[in-house]
């Protein structure tokens, strides 16, 4: 039977050991494109767009934001290692469509934060106002951002207060009691 160690070893080989920081001991395993590394799937422009969008969706607050936990690198790993050609194509088209819509009145990357946030909030409202359609790609991307964020140690532990071993079941807790999940 192939073990996790075997799997990681193969994975490291398959990506040339450049961007997969994988430890086979007790250290956390990260198989995402490291911050600052070129994208394995995305272009530099796409990586930049994803960074801007993901931080606007999940900003740094008292807990880490999307950039802090390397959400763009996670999504790059997702596209490089998990996605089929079909999924990659849909994702790339979605990024293009998002940028096109956000750049209607000027280059989105050049906007300041307030302008960018305002435009994205408007796009988000439109995306959730319609059941499906042209903005389905944005919703899928937002799903990647959110899932990636909460799949990282910073997102899970600090924001979600995820606990590895809850140890007990309480079926009825008041929301005001901020304890982990």
């Amino acid at each position, binding site marked *: 039977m192939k073990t996790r160690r075997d799997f990681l070893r193969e994975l490291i080989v398959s990506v040339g050991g450049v961007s997969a920081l994988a430890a086979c001991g007790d250290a956390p395993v990260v198989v*995402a494109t490291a911050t600052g590394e070129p994208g394995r799937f995305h272009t530099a422009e796409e990586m930049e767009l994803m960074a801007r969008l993901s931080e606007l*969706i999940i*900003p740094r607050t008292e807990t880490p934001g999307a950039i802090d936990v390397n959400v763009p690198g996670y999504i790059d790993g997702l596209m490089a290692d998990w996605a089929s050609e079909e999924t990659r194509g849909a994702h790339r088209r979605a990024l293009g469509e998002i940028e096109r819509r956000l750049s209607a009145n000027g280059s989105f990357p050049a906007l300041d934060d307030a302008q960018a946030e305002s435009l994205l909030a408007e796009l988000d409202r439109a995306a*959730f106002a319609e059941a499906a359609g042209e903005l389905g790609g944005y919703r899928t991307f937002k799903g990647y951002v*959110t899932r990636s964020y909460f*799949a990282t140690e910073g997102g899970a532990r600090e924001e979600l207060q995820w606990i590895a*071993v809850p140890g007990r079941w309480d079926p009825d807790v008041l929301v005001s009691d901020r304890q982990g999940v």
Partner: protein
Amino acid sequence: MAEATQFDAIVVGSGMSGGMSAKELCERGLRVLVLERGPEIVPERDYSDNLAPWQSPNFDNVSQDEIAQRYFRQYPGVPYALKESNKDFWVRDDVHDYVEAEGTRYEWLRGYHTAGRSIMWSRQTYRLGPQDFEENQREGVAIDWPVRYEDIVPWYEKVETFVGIAGSEEGLGHLPDSVFQPPFELTAVEKAFKQRVETSFPGRNVIPARVAHLTDATEEQRSLGRSNCQLRNRCHHGCSFRAYFSSLNATLPAAGRTGNLTMAHNAIVQSLEYDPESNRVSGVRVVDAETSEARTYTSRIVFLNASAIASALILLQSQSESFPTGLANRSDQVGRNLMDHVSGAGAAGIMRGFDDRKVFGRRPSGGIYIPRYANITETDKPYTRGFGYQGGASPLGHANGQIPGIGRQFKESHRRPGPWRISIGAFGEQLPNPDNRVTLHPTRADRWGNPLPVFEVRYSRNEEIMLEEARKDAIAMLEAAGCEEITSSPVNLTNPGNRIHEMGSARMGRDPESSVLNGWCQAHDVPNLFITDGAFMVSAACQNPSLTYMAFSARAANHAADLLAEGIV
């Protein structure tokens, strides 16, 4: 042929029923060989339950290309359970092929390794009720069960005490209570749903799901290294706490500590050898999965626990002058009457008024169960038999980003449970039909030379009508409970096999002309052959069947040990 080795008993398969057969036989003092067709699972090496989310790349998803190439049948059936970190628990479809008869579909979902599917099961655990053993006779369907509920009660009790089942005593005649450990208490939403449904539908009950998780481990369970559930919900990856029941967590260690157990892995049983003079199985022929080396083991009795389908295939492959159509198949019932449970009908809705409530802990399986009421407490149905619903309520807070908003507010909305959603889905009984069967392909074989199975299974009109009604009932109960935004997809019956409850392929009965096994799971035609996986089932009932397989296994094993002691076999 390499060797011949003598044991008192050979058990083919180490999964749910095989583990129990082995335990009981070993504890009776028999020297037992368990043949497992897959590799050994070593929990410390092969379980992945201790991985944190950030230690599993890509959300622990298997790559889409690999699914298309290797798991194209397994994954669509169990996307919730087949992940990158545990994918080796599931067979590769490109290696373990099978054939579906034209115009039919079948999902044979399985794992080849120590403990089989008992590692990956979803752990809902229910007894059959008295009616389940009687309805065939009452309705003139198929054949009568040769046993009644009362015959099995002591064995249910014995197995339940060993296994450990969390559940609540309800006193329902048609879904008898097990020997329970404390249940996982219902959430506030589930309690409200229960109260409202039971008020609106007096013949229906909403109860905590009964699940094979330890919540108050006994001394015996602790002595096997088992401890209480830690509420992690990582069960499909194995459990380092051994808190949920599996062969690997419980029965095989219990068998092993008797000193009477021998395990052989990578041992694919090809056929059973038959000696016409003694009218006994005289040997078990296996081929090594890795080396393709053939060898034969011998024993005084043989238990087939390879799964309903695999056990039938072994019999069909065991052809001789005495049994030209397969061992113990004079009735021509081997491979027939293949049943599963059928789903594909249900509903979901939002229950308002609970947004200030959340839970602590990740409940491992099931929330609520609605036992069968059709044709028990309600008799106005346009179909026979019935279904139970499995379901539960959970907050929508973590909707994978599928809620509006960006920025701090969006981010922190994940701290709150949000609206609660409750869903229920039906598990219906499939009627036995001799034309629903598995046979051997005449020309195509796997890499070890075993003929590929050919499945030909169709649902009857009864199942179709039943599920349509189950959908209507589900919507009606959600409406009665005050749900909003109720959604219910059109009925789309799960493919046969999808519920992973296959059974019936070597049914028991009183008459050797129409059944393969007697009431002790002993082959009519071959007295030292027993089959105690799902193959013996005469009807499917609608409850999850593993507990029943294990109760019949324990009963048959002790009966076989008695027969051996008396010199009868």
